């Protein structure tokens, strides 16, 4: 397994990660021998349909798994030194939020309804650092200004008094309190209106450009990826099938799945007659097809695709691909 990028450029690397869940129907392999590198100072978008394992992969970066799940195998290395999956509980608690912070999906609901906004900030900071409340408030005010909220007014609010877009920005401000090195954003705008979405995406992009913070942006919607990402990783049924720069992925997709996703994204500019739905249904995740998992939906599938799964390999130009069509 070779992936490009020298070790010092890589903030966190995932190798051969497999995560399974015990459910009434049997064992579900949510992440299947996935490989991914997140480089220092980039915004990487992780894109795939619901159920492809992108959220599970992101949670694994913090070694969070639901009680019925298990990280079966694999290695997650932070800065080439911290082995995330073997950190003891106390170290893990420090690692989370301080090194890697996450904004969960539907984060608007993760605020405590009986705590004022600034109390969240105090709570979060004191769990990690010994600082005075005054200092926390100062830092938090700065962060709130970052997200274009007025600290004096907003920090006194209870969550129910804030709109969805405001709550999303409050959560963003909270996640930045401890200067994490990696910020994971799981569908941060999926419940928001287009205008709020445009502002949140622009805010994240600006934050990234000014602080150089590394971000992992998870979504099923390619249209927003174009706005925010530097690089893109495409995930299908638990595996990364293609990675590349955002321009490469949009203008020159190599994997048939990537191409199909792009063709299924309507926009205000494109020719509508070129929009095509994804071919075929998503296979049953409990019995994924052998060989390349995309082969039943792929127009280029050969006998080899049906039998031998294609590995994710370097194809030059700083991109990786798991498909026999391009890599013979």
């Amino acid at each position, binding site marked *: 397994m070779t992936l490009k990028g020298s070790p010092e450029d890589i903030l966190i690397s995932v190798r051969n990660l497999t995560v399974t869940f015990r459910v009434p129907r049997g064992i579900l392999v949510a992440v299947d021998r996935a490989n991914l590198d997140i480089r220092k100072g980039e915004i990487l978008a992780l894109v795939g*349909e*619901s159920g492809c394992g992108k959220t599970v992969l992101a949670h694994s970066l913090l070694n969070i798994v639901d009680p019925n799940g298990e990280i079966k195998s694999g290695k997650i290395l932070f800065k080439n030194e911290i082995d995330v999956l073997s950190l003891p509980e106390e170290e893990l608690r420090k690692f989370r939020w301080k090194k890697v912070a996450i904004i969960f999906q539907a984060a608007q609901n993760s605020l405590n309804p009986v705590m004022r906004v600034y109390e969240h900030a105090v709570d979060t900071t004191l769990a990690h650092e010994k600082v005075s409340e005054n200092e926390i408030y100062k830092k938090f005010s700065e962060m709130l200004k970052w997200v*274009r909220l007025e600290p004096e007014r907003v920090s006194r609010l209870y969550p129910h008094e804030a*709109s*969805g*877009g*405001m709550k999303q920005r409050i959560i963003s401000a909270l996640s930045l309190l401890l200067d994490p090195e990696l910020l994971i954003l799981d569908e941060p705008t999926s419940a928001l*209106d*287009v*205008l*709020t*979405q*445009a*502002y949140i*995406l*622009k805010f994240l992009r600006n934050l990234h450009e000014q602080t150089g913070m590394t971000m992992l942006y998870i979504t*099923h*919607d*390619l*249209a*927003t*990826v*174009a*706005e925010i*990402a530097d690089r893109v990783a495409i995930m299908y049924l638990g595996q990364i099938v293609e990675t590349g720069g*955002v*321009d490469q992925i*949009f*203008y020159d997709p190599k994997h048939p799945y990537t191409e*199909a*996703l*792009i063709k*299924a*994204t*309507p*926009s*205000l*500019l*494109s020719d*509508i007659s070129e*929009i*095509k*739905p*994804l071919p075929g249904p*998503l296979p049953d995740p409990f019995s994924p097809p052998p060989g390349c998992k995309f082969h039943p939906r792929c127009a280029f599938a050969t006998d080899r695709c049906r039998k031998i799964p294609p590995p994710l390999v370097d194809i030059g130009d700083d991109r990786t691909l798991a498909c026999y069509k391009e890599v013979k």
Partner: protein
Amino acid sequence: MPDSLIEARSVSKYFRISRGAIKEAAILKAVDDASMEIKNGETVCLVGESGCGKSTLGRLLLGLLEPTHGSILYKGKDIWNMNAREFMEYRRNAQIIHQDPYDAINPVRTIYSSLSGPLLHYKLANRSNVREKVAELLELVGLIPASDFMNRFPCRLSGGQLQRIAIARAISVNPSFIVADEAVSMLDASLRINILNLLLDLKKKFNLACLFITHDLAIARYFAKDGRVIIMYLGNIVESGNLEEVIRKPMHPYTEVLIEASPVPDPKVAKSRPLPNLRSVEIPSAINPPPGCKFHTRCPYAIDKCSKEVPELRDVGGGRKIACHLR
């Protein structure tokens, strides 16, 4: 026969709500003096941010809510002055597809039971052939083989499959008008086109008039093609016209902002675009909306007059209507 199939004439819907511990009554004007019509077989998209009253207007047209002022006409007849038989006939003709299929389909009934109910109620099938009819419906919405789905419970179906069931149920009673309220926004981006294509097929097949409610202009553009669009802001219609023309050349500043904010799946375009030039990101409260033009607090072009006088929705030719003092 009148030209329009369904028409809203200056309809308003106010909700009385109470705020805080001490019940202080307030009036929420969800829809405020809106007029529109939909012709036989026509597609109209209703676009706006959440809370702008687009779902309320849809429900008014369906007769699910009674307007506070104004009237809803179906084939020229006020639906709230119909006799029971006429009203039932109108109800059969006007159906809805909800946003969340998980909430819209009864979880403790089998698919067969959910779909056979309306058919039997409207006497479109009898006990002996209802099973056959349900099978036909399932095949029509692409759930094949139908026998696989009939006896399943909703929890065994995916979101996309459930939305197909919801569509099957809406068209089962041979309606002439369908309201699709954010019918694909809960679905994965990759699944949306499939469901939209199904709706488009059925629309054509049965010559359905359709009100397509969405907050996503790109989806509206795919669905409506040469249909019309109505843009709503805080209970008012601010612009209407041919969808493609409105997108190419928006006239109301709010429409302009909505278009500028829509994500574009093209990295070079997306990254070079400036943010819409809004004076405020937050939508004002619908309970206490700004006076004059409700958009003036956010509008980059607002002048004095905008905060004082309410702009009328006026015809500017070419089938376009706008409510703005400046354009």
